[in-house]
């Protein structure tokens, strides 16, 4: 689609940006100012969850996951694209709560590249919303992100238990919940040995993603990873 404005701030995109723009066939989605505010995550980081670290290794939280009974081995790896700072928090709340669906496009290139780099041949599965939340919001923010991956996503999961203001609960509160909010849809055939890639907007403690992995692994999936936009 033709665009001459920054996806985020709707200000006109500079057309006289010099040689680089001249030779590039692709127009940027964002103006320089909005682009610069995104902080891409790169090594050194936690090899399991993308948390920024002084050296690349496994972070304390991931070590704890690995040692906790019933929780270890659920999630092979999470890769997050950007640091969840104040700016990204604003962007994601405009996206999710204000409902500016189009903003997902600003992550399109990074999503594509990251999929190709780390998760080739995996099957993308967006984290589903409960029916109630879906009606409230009018769209699933994870599915709208998954649209931009190079392969089609499969809605294998459904959410049985309401989100119950997940975002307001503390880490302890989230970890303690023994509920199993997700289930594999009834019409899904066995997933024997497949690599499933969960898609979501934010990785906070990783509990939601691990809970979503449980039914998939039960259903025969070989491994479950996650690709998320933001890492807090």
């Amino acid at each position, binding site marked *: 689609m033709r665009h001459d404005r920054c996806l985020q701030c*709707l200000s006109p995109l500079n057309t006289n940006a010099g040689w680089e723009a001249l030779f590039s066939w692709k127009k940027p989605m964002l103006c320089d100012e909005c682009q610069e505010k995104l902080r891409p995550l790169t090594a050194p980081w936690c090899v399991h969850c993308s948390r920024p670290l002084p050296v690349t290794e496994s972070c304390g939280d991931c070590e704890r996951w690995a040692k906790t009974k019933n929780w270890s081995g659920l999630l092979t790896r999470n890769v997050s694209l950007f640091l969840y700072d104040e700016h990204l928090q604003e962007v994601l709340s405009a996206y999710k709560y*204000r409902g500016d*669906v189009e903003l997902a496009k600003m992550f399109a290139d990074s999503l594509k590249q990251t999929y190709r780099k780390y998760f080739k041949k995996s099957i993308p599965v967006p984290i589903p919303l409960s029916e109630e939340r879906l009606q*409230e*919001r*009018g769209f699933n923010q994870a599915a*709208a992100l998954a649209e931009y991956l190079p392969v089609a996503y499969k809605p294998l999961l459904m959410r049985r238990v309401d989100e119950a203001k997940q975002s307001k609960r503390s880490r302890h509160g989230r970890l303690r919940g023994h509920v199993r909010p997700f289930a594999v849809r009834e019409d899904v055939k066995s997933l024997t040995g497949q690599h499933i890639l969960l898609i979501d907007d934010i990785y906070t403690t990783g509990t939601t993603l691990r809970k979503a992995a449980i039914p998939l692994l039960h259903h025969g999936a070989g491994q479950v990873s996650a690709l998320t936009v933001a890492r807090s």
Partner: protein
Amino acid sequence: MKVVIATPRNVPSPLMLPLACVKDHDNVQSDPAPISTFTNPPPPPSLQETSEPLSDLHLELQGLLTGRALLPDEFPFPYTQIESFIRSGYVYLQAGIKRGKSSRHQCQRCGNTKKDWFARYDCAWCNGPCLYCRRCVMMGRVTTCTPLFRWGGPVFSAQERRHDVLAWQGELSPLQRRAADRITETIMQHKAAKLLVWAVCGAGKTEMLFPGIARGLEEGKRVLIATPRTDVVLELEPRLRRAFPTTTLASLYGGSPERLAYGQLVVATTHQTRRFQDAFDVAIIDEVDAFPYRYDESLAYAVKNATRKQAVLIYLTATPDEGLRKKCEKEKAVVKVSRRFHGYPLPVPEFQWAGNWRKALAREHLSPVFSAWVDEQLTSGRQALIFAPSVQVAKQLHQILQKKETSIVSVHASDPERKEIVKRFRDGEMPLLITTTILERGVTIYGIDVVVLGAEDDVFVESALVQIAGRAGRSADDPHGTVTFFHYGKTKAMNRCRKQILAMNRGEHQDEA
């Protein structure tokens, strides 16, 4: 959501009903579909008169919907509760996005017709692809399947004649008085009219409005004050509340608690103005040339939509653009206030050649004249604002100036500490503050000097420079601030700005009528 066209029992003509409100006994005449797919929607049904006393819900809806269109999820209760009002014609549905002439889409709330500002997505409300309007999405998403709920009943009228609504007892200067009289006169014409109030920065515009607003309110008129910035709404609200203590006042900005309250006097950001339809008899538009108006053609649409046919429009600005100026001058609808409230002339900008200051900055140097100014300013002990053409320049400058004086900081629009920094500057905690154009208007800091580094840059258009110069000498105790434009080549905008200020000071604009 999906809607149907149906003829309910006991109703003579078909009407549009949300699918969730359809009952077995309704005679449904269409498939359920998104509202914008109906090319020939039935007209709003004629009212079914009732002799019963009005319910609380009726009164609440009347207040909510008088002069306003709401989305289904904007009611403080589920929209299905107003089913009976839809059936009786008191509330009717209108498509949120229509396909207009030449098959362009138009958002019926904000008037957007720009293709780029509509986006397509998979909509869970109607299980299909929908378009939505990105321009006004911050007020809730209007999609091709979203109906806007409108009031079809008799309008809310808390507006009987009243007396002495104005509690403010301050005094106006003779020039302010003159403008205030023109404003009152225009408002009391009781017919469509406009007036451009061209008042220099620091003229005391708000007070000049009080008498006119008061007369309008006393006559039962509904008055809107629209302004581009939330900061200004927040600043005006308490002043208006004190001035008009007996008037129902609503102040509306993104996230304000009074979003749905009824007000006879409404002070709102431009965005919030878009919620209203046919609501106001008087609309006062503050800083008519300011961001985001300047690039926002939808303002005219929003104001036209929000006002009644016979409404009075009052434009307030220190720097009118040529189009508006000419239009109003032709109709002799301009009143100028060329003196500040304290009576002293506006500081006139001085031009200083600064050479290739950008190149110097890239090498972490300051151009010598500018450097000399900084040193002098620091020894003088006077505070000054330094305007930079971009965030990048502001940051570079900040790094260099910090070596001279550690307390100097820079500020830009998306700086999370913006308010805090300005407050600290105001409290005198730093001698110099580097800023982008965000502080160009609306901000009053007493007793400062002002400089622009790179006044030749395209961002500094004539009106921006006039506003910047207007930051100096605001206080009656210290009315003589200095204004210096450091440049690498004089521009038309700089010359015009200077000419405009000189003309104002000569009082050339004294009388036009």
